């Protein structure tokens, strides 16, 4: 204990005396992250790692979602729904404060929603606010939200990072200095290296939070991630990027390996607004040219489930459409020839994630067998967000869509980077959203899957697995993730 720097010793002492609890030192968890975001505001940027670090840890929403997908109370301790299902009255928890000390009340909730719903809002999931008619503060502890029509996903969506409650005074600074109300406070961010959170002692559930400090370390390279894990520099790597190395960790008694599911559909996205992908026959030819089994074996070392449309295989409305375009290079070649694009060159812009770069090489090979020359460009994440996602400047790309209930992406019209504009799909999604009967909704979701598969909007590849490597001592991590976040509230380190 003597080699600790003075400040650290002091903190440990303060804690020991302050809490009069066990004599153990501050519990610190070091977590490996593959993707470093460029902003820390989940209400302003689509990067998934923002949610995995910030949502429900630093920022809180009205509701939250449990590991099994069930909606639970959060900032709103309870709520009532009117007879017609259009008005929700949320009762906020008493005495909640933001990390800067200011109180969180109904006005902040109204502000957060106004900000997300505004014309110039940069919220990455603006569509989830679409059904909302108005948000009103009834009194400081009560908020009333009125919907335009019934919304089956409303309470679920209220538990996402996109609908985090932020304070008007600090909202603008949240991209670099996030201030929320969650069980952990943002401490520091050293770009390219690490991000540190510390426990928020004023949180209403502080007694249940076992960790005093959480350090996220950004390690994008799988080999470096493995080395850091092996050296026990990291306690956990919940989104481990190298499936081929899992057997090695499984064989090591120091570690525990978890293979769970996520909401992430990995797709070979095609720019539907741009020739030649505006032609459904070309997209079908691409779907016929790709061989999912080979991609899963080669890129994911067998650790993934194939998908034939845009819906996770563990979902209740799942239909297996993986057989819709059976892999057949010769047939694909003929299809490309008939569509008049045989021998063309297309670019495949790939973000820097192992699942994407590895799949790209295999897909390139499969396309070349079908007579298409795909040029692979490995690009940086910032470049991808800017050029592909925002400016829609691409032919094809490979990306995982990790948001839950995200079939609505296909109803976002030509402004979304898919460039897919289909009134039928938009109408269907509207119906799905407003259908509150689970059985009927599942039927509609099945129709949606069929429609997307029929039109071969993208090449649907596989469901992104949640591969986690943990030190045996780390407990309480989710095995599967129905949402983008990974709450640290229940995580602890056994001694």
């Amino acid at each position, binding site marked *: 204990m003597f080699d600790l720097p003075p400040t650290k010793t002091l903190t440990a002492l303060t804690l020991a005396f302050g809490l009069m609890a066990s004599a153990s030192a501050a519990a610190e968890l070091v977590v490996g992250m593959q993707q470093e975001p460029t902003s820390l505001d989940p209400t302003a940027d689509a990067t998934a790692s923002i949610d995995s670090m910030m949502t429900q840890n630093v920022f809180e929403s009205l509701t939250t979602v449990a590991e099994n997908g069930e909606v639970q109370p959060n900032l709103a301790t309870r709520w009532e729904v009117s007879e017609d299902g259009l008005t929700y009255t949320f009762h906020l928890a008493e005495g909640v404060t933001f990390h800067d000390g200011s109180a969180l009340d109904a006005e902040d909730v109204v502000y957060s929603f106004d900000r997300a719903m505004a014309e110039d809002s940069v919220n990455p999931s603006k569509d989830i606010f679409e059904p909302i008619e108005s948000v009103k503060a009834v009194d400081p502890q009560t908020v009333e939200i009125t919907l335009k029509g019934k919304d089956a996903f409303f309470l679920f969506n209220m538990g996402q990072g996109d609908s985090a409650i932020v304070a008007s005074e600090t909202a603008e600074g949240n991209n670099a200095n996030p201030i929320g109300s969650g069980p952990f406070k943002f401490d520091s961010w050293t770009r390219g290296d690490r991000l540190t959170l510390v426990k928020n002692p004023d949180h209403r559930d502080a007694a249940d939070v076992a960790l005093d400090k959480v350090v996220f370390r950004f390690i994008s390279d799988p080999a470096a991630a493995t080395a850091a894990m092996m050296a026990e520099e990291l306690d956990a790597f919940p989104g481990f990027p190298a499936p*081929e190395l899992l057997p090695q960790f499984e064989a090591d008694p120091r570690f525990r390996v978890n293979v769970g599911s996520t909401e992430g559909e990995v797709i070979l996205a095609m720019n539907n607004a741009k020739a030649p992908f505006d032609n459904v026959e070309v997209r079908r030819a691409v779907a016929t040219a790709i061989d999912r089994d080979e991609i899963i074996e*080669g890129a994911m070392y067998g650790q993934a489930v194939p998908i034939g449309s845009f819906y996770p295989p563990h979902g209740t409305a799942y239909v297996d459409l993986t057989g819709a375009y059976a892999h057949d290079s010769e047939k694909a070649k003929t299809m490309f020839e008939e569509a008049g694009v045989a021998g063309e060159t297309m670019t495949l812009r790939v973000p820097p994630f192992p699942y994407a770069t590895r799949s790209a*090489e295999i897909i390139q090979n499969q396309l070349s067998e079908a007579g298409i020359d795909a040029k*692979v460009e*490995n690009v940086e994440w910032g470049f991808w967000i800017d050029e592909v996602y925002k400016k829609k400047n691409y032919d094809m790309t490979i990306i995982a869509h990790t948001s839950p209930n995200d079939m609505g992406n296909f109803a976002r019209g030509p402004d979304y980077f898919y460039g897919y504009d289909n009134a039928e799909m938009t109408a269907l999604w509207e119906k799905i959203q407003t259908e509150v009967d689970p059985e009927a909704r599942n039927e509609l979701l099945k129709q949606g899957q069929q429609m997307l598969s029929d039109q071969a909007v993208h090449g649907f590849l596989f469901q992104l697995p949640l591969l986690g490597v943990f030190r045996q001592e780390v407990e309480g991590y989710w095995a599967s993730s129905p949402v983008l976040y990974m709450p640290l509230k229940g995580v602890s380190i056994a001694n």
Partner: protein
Amino acid sequence: MRRLPANFLLGAVLVSIVVGIAALSLIWTPHDPQTMSISTKFAPPSATHWLGTDQLGRDVVAQLMAAARNSMTVALVAVLLGGSIGVALGLLASALGGWVEDGVMRLADLGFAFPALLFAIMLAAVFGPSLTNAVLAISFINIPIFARVTRASANQIWTRDYVAAARAAGRGRFAISRDHILPNIAAAIIVQATIEFAVAILAEAALSYLGLGAQPPASSWGRMLSEAQTLMYLAPQLAIYPGLCIVTAVLGFGLLGDGLRDITDPRLVRAR
């Protein structure tokens, strides 16, 4: 005949092997270097796959051969391109002297100060990463090197009596540069080119390793290394093979360059 120095012989042997393999890959490789067979990934060495297969079931020998060709092509183009511009600038500086010479040499200093890798990253940022941009970047760093060597050697030749005679006979500066200067400094340039060849091979490998050079599916030693890096725990041989190839090629051209200098440099011959 004088005994050839050992470094020259060893270098010549290594270079012959590498160039021979690269040339052979034009007409024959044991398998197609691009053909994947994911069911037989990480196969151990066997009669069909002499060095086994990689993470996507591609034949390692075929890839190494194709990569050798890629490496030789890049180095050749980069040295020829950078070298010809550099030599031309050097001759020009030496022939004209005065402010032209000063200007060219200051530009060369500027070029020296600019790291090649940074230049390649800049090119990649503007035009996207590609092998062409990598070749351009490597060519660019060669220009000042050749300009300096050429000017220094040429300045010596300009003081010779036969050059003075040619000038007295009324020949122009450019004609003299071409007919008298260039042939007499050719040895120095060839030595430099051989050494720069080794540097270019290393630079191509580094750029491809960083994803700024050869793009998939083109085979490149650097790219093979970077792919193998993530598999170090699983299949370390995949990193060792391209590593050995880079070492062999760089060492070969380096030794050959040294050897050539030992043979051609009159000062060194006299000192022996």
